[in-house]
């Protein structure tokens, strides 16, 4: 054997290996919220279609739109977006029309089809995939559950230093608005000015302002007993470890969040992107998304109930949804100027 023989052998083996492998897998690029990053959600789709789903998490529509601004058309195939912001994305020409007849919306909870959000002039641009509530979560072994039915109790002095605020301005400002009798749909610049004092009062009664993980940890470890802005999405993953964690919609009402999924207008593989949307909104994808490791939430597709276990449905309070839906309002939908004003107020609250 000459000195070059081992090298030749290695190259030949590598070539044989390379040709024996399947062609490079197709990739789908998804701009998502953290619940879609769960491998248990993505793997069935990847296996069924022989593709790799690349995900990038973002938080807040402004950040998501900024990412799209910095990207080339075609960089992203699908996007998860706050239900109330679908219209903004449509206005910007970012979303591709979806074939409504191929989407399983007939199986959805009727209130969650939300054509007013997901469609424009009869054309569907997005589809609701998950929903839940931003309201009051608490440890029922530490607080009087009856107090949690009235938001005024939070700033009465009884729970000072035992409250955490979820660090997301839209739902919490919406909740503070509801506590002042301002419906989320009426939350404009003038109404916002009136929320400064109650917001600062709430902050003064609170111990911390935390993101999902921080507020969840604070509630789970007993650092705080109440979380303003919490809900099933935060307590459900802890239910097995701490059954005392509970949530309620107070008399003043709560906020209902919903997230939608859409195909981006510049996608170079719209068919695959549509398949992903159909998987996510189908019963199996919905059940997996509802119980994602990042956070739980109600599936928009009622047929996911056939896939979820009775225990999972109990944690999600499946049977109580009609009442919850009736007593909750959608997120405020600020225009750019109001959004800036809201974020300024939120930053001021954090800094005080």
């Amino acid at each position: 054997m000459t000195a070059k023989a081992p090298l030749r052998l290695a190259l030949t083996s590598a070539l044989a290996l390379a040709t024996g492998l399947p062609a490079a897998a197709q990739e789908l690029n998804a701009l998502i919220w953290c619940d879609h990053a769960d491998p248990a959600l993505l793997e069935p789709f990847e296996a069924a279609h022989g593709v790799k789903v690349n995900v990038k998490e973002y938080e807040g529509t402004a950040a998501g739109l900024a990412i799209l601004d910095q990207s080339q058309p075609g960089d992203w195939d699908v996007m998860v977006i706050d239900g109330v912001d679908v219209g903004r994305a449509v206005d910007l020409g970012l979303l591709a029309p979806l074939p409504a007849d191929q989407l399983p919306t007939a199986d959805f909870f009727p209130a969650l089809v939300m054509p007013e959000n997901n469609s424009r002039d009869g054309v569907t641009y997005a589809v609701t995939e998950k929903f839940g509530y931003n309201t009051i979560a608490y440890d029922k072994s530490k607080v009087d559950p009856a107090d949690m039915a009235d938001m005024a109790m939070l700033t009465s002095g009884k729970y000072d230093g035992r409250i955490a605020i979820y660090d997301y301005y839209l739902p919490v400002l919406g909740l503070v608005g509801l506590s002042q009798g301002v419906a989320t749909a009426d939350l404009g610049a003038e109404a916002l000015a009136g929320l400064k004092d109650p917001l600062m009062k709430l902050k003064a009664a609170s111990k911390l302002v935390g993101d999902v993980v921080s507020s969840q940890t604070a509630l789970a470890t007993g650092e705080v007993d109440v979380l303003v802005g919490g809900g099933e999405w935060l307590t459900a993953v802890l239910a097995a470890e701490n059954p005392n964690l509970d949530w309620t919609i107070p008399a003043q009402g709560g906020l209902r969040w919903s997230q939608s999924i859409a195909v981006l207008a510049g996608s170079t593989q719209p068919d695959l992107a549509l398949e992903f949307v159909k998987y996510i909104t189908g019963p199996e994808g919905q059940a997996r998304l509802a119980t994602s490791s990042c956070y739980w939430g109600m599936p928009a597709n009622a047929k996911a109930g056939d896939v979820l276990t009775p225990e999972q449905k109990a944690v999600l309070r499946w049977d109580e949804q009609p009442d919850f839906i009736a007593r909750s309002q959608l997120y405020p939908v600020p225009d750019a100027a109001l959004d800036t004003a809201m974020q300024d107020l939120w930053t001021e609250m954090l800094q005080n």
Partner: protein
Amino acid sequence: MTIEAQESRRAALLVAPALIWTAAFFILPFGAMIWLSLSSMQGRAIMPGPDFGNYIRIFTDPSLRQGLWNSLQITLAVTVISVVLAWPLAWIIAMRVPARWQRLALLLAVLPFWTSYVVRSYAWLLVLGQNGVLNKALTGLGLAAAPLEIVATRGATLGGFVHFFVMLLTLTIYANLIQLSSNYARAAADLGAGTFATFRHVILPLTLPGVMTGAFLTFVLCIGDYITPQILGGNNELTLPQLIMLQLGRRGDFPMASALSILLMAVVTLAYAACARWLRMERL
């Protein structure tokens, strides 16, 4: 071509890769960031400048100005406390711990570096929390009637930072101390200096390079960290890096994020200039 010209050309070729690297990965991105900081947002569009509005807003908006102030206060406090705690620790390891145990002592000193900022901060939550180890011990021993409120305060942020940076400073000061000949102390004693005078006029000045190097590293790492104030401080006061993250992650305001980053770099540069001047580094 003369020999001088050939040597000059060879030197230029040798330096070229470093210059190209620096230009590509520092000067150009830095220039882009300055350009971006002088732009402004109109809706979601970035409008090219020059527009100094972002810098003006940093110093006129109370929330942003307070962020700079918070960062400076926390960083200076952490640096001073860490130096005060690290110096005696380094001295004990270098002078009092037998040589064969010094390696183990140093290993213990660097243990905190083995975990990430996030894990370390959450670990501190379990120690300092209402139901944490510290409060359980204090109430169990009857030293406190009720659990102390430590988490979500500036004290918790300082504690988390100091725990980490004491170890960093211990290493840099130890490296300095271990090189000091014992003859310095003997010579001082021969000249009639007492223990404190020897420390004050001989040992301490000789360890200042280690102290200042560690202090500068502490300053840079502390002022740029947003995780510890967020987790341990309960997000109750915002620092500069937290404000930068807010601009990027929530507002999508890249020009303001760039302006705040330039300000952060300016503060670090000033700290470096002060350190260099203190150590007279230009003479080194």
